[in-house]
């Protein structure tokens, strides 16, 4: 049957919903493109034959054309959905992706990520009066200036805005400026303690 490989790509997307991306499936993608090429060539030939006078070939052409369109849709959907996830990852992981997440992106996707990163940074810089506004901060309305956090992993030293050094060692508990540690919480290094 046509388009089975293309559908594999879609199924792969469905399985990885809500998580970071699986490796860019270049192999399957190439298979799909090959199938499309074959379909196209076959149609080309049938059309030529039809022009020569052979009758009844158009239904076949119609079917192959539908398969071509379908393949196209699957591939585009695959790329589009991956891009969306890539964009979301900027907000979830921050501007630098963990190495193993980055490893799963294709070259073009990495480029796109970097460009998105840059546009976002430029936009955020342009907001507000001085120095811009960090949109990734305060995703939830802050209640207090400082928050209590607990360290979940050995992260090493961390310099606060006031210039003091805090050692983020597993199971140590700190009271820090919310703005300083929010991204560390989002990355799973700190845990926010509420009472």
């Amino acid at each position, binding site marked *: *049957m*046509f*388009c089975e490989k293309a*559908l594999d790509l*879609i*199924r792969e*997307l*469905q399985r990885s*919903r*809500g*998580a*970071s991306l699986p490796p860019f499936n270049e192999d399957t993608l190439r298979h799909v493109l090959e199938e499309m090429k074959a379909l196209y060539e*076959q149609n080309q030939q*049938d059309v030529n034959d039809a022009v020569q006078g052979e009758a*009844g*070939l158009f*239904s*076949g052409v*119609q*079917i*192959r*054309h*539908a*398969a071509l369109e*379908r393949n196209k*849709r*699957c591939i*585009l*959907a695959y790329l*589009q*959905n991956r891009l*969306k*996830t890539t*964009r*979301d*990852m900027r*907000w*979830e*992981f921050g501007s630098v992706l*963990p190495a*193993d*997440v980055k490893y799963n992106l294709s070259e073009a996707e990495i480029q796109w990520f970097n460009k998105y990163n840059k546009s976002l940074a430029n936009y955020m810089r342009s907001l507000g009066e001085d120095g811009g506004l960090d949109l990734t901060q305060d995703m*939830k309305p802050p*209640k207090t200036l400082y*928050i209590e956090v607990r360290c979940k992993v050995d992260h090493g030293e961390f310099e606060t805005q006031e210039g003091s050094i805090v050692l983020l060692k597993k199971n140590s508990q700190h009271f820090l400026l919310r703005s300083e540690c*929010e991204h560390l*919480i*989002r*990355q*799973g290094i700190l*845990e*926010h303690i*509420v009472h």
Partner: protein
Amino acid sequence: MANSQASSSRSGYYEENYFSIDDILATHERIKCKFEVPVFRLGFLDMTTDNEHISPGSKLDLPFWLARVLCNKRNKKKHIADVEIPKQYKESYREILLADANVVDLHKLGPYYYTFGAQLLKFDPADASDIASSLVQTFQGRFRNIMDSSQNAYNEDNARLTAKLDEMEKDLFKAGQKGLNDFQDWETRRVEKLQTSTMVVNHKKRKRAALIE
């Protein structure tokens, strides 16, 4: 739960959305087609024979997106095959659904029962209006239960509750659960708590699972 951006990529599920994963999967459901005209050089599509061509009268299970192209009642010239409406949308099943929609395992009848059913209407079958009203009634009949269970299952394993739901109903259930959880979080002041990003959590989980393997 997925954040706003992640869920926005899923919106447009109900109408046709070119990039929607669910829509692509739903339109891949198979449907029985009977060929009216011969199709040359595509005999390999019919696994039961070794013929080079598909001969008129042969019946094939084809995905919806292909059947949609083949069956064209308005333009007789382009009409290649007739489709047979799947049995789960036929009268006998419609009667079962009418009797009590709540006990039916819609997931088994097709994980995309509603979406696929709505798509079928495009073939303009004779009982189109019956199918349409059956879909609406079924949904109405089941909605209350879904809402109830999604609003009352707090911190429970809901695999049992969602096992018989169609994919769209599952999304509804999830939305209900999200509402419930958000409310509880608000009430117990857990909304204030900054959370680790969902993706980071999932990423770590997968890493750990990989380590164990």
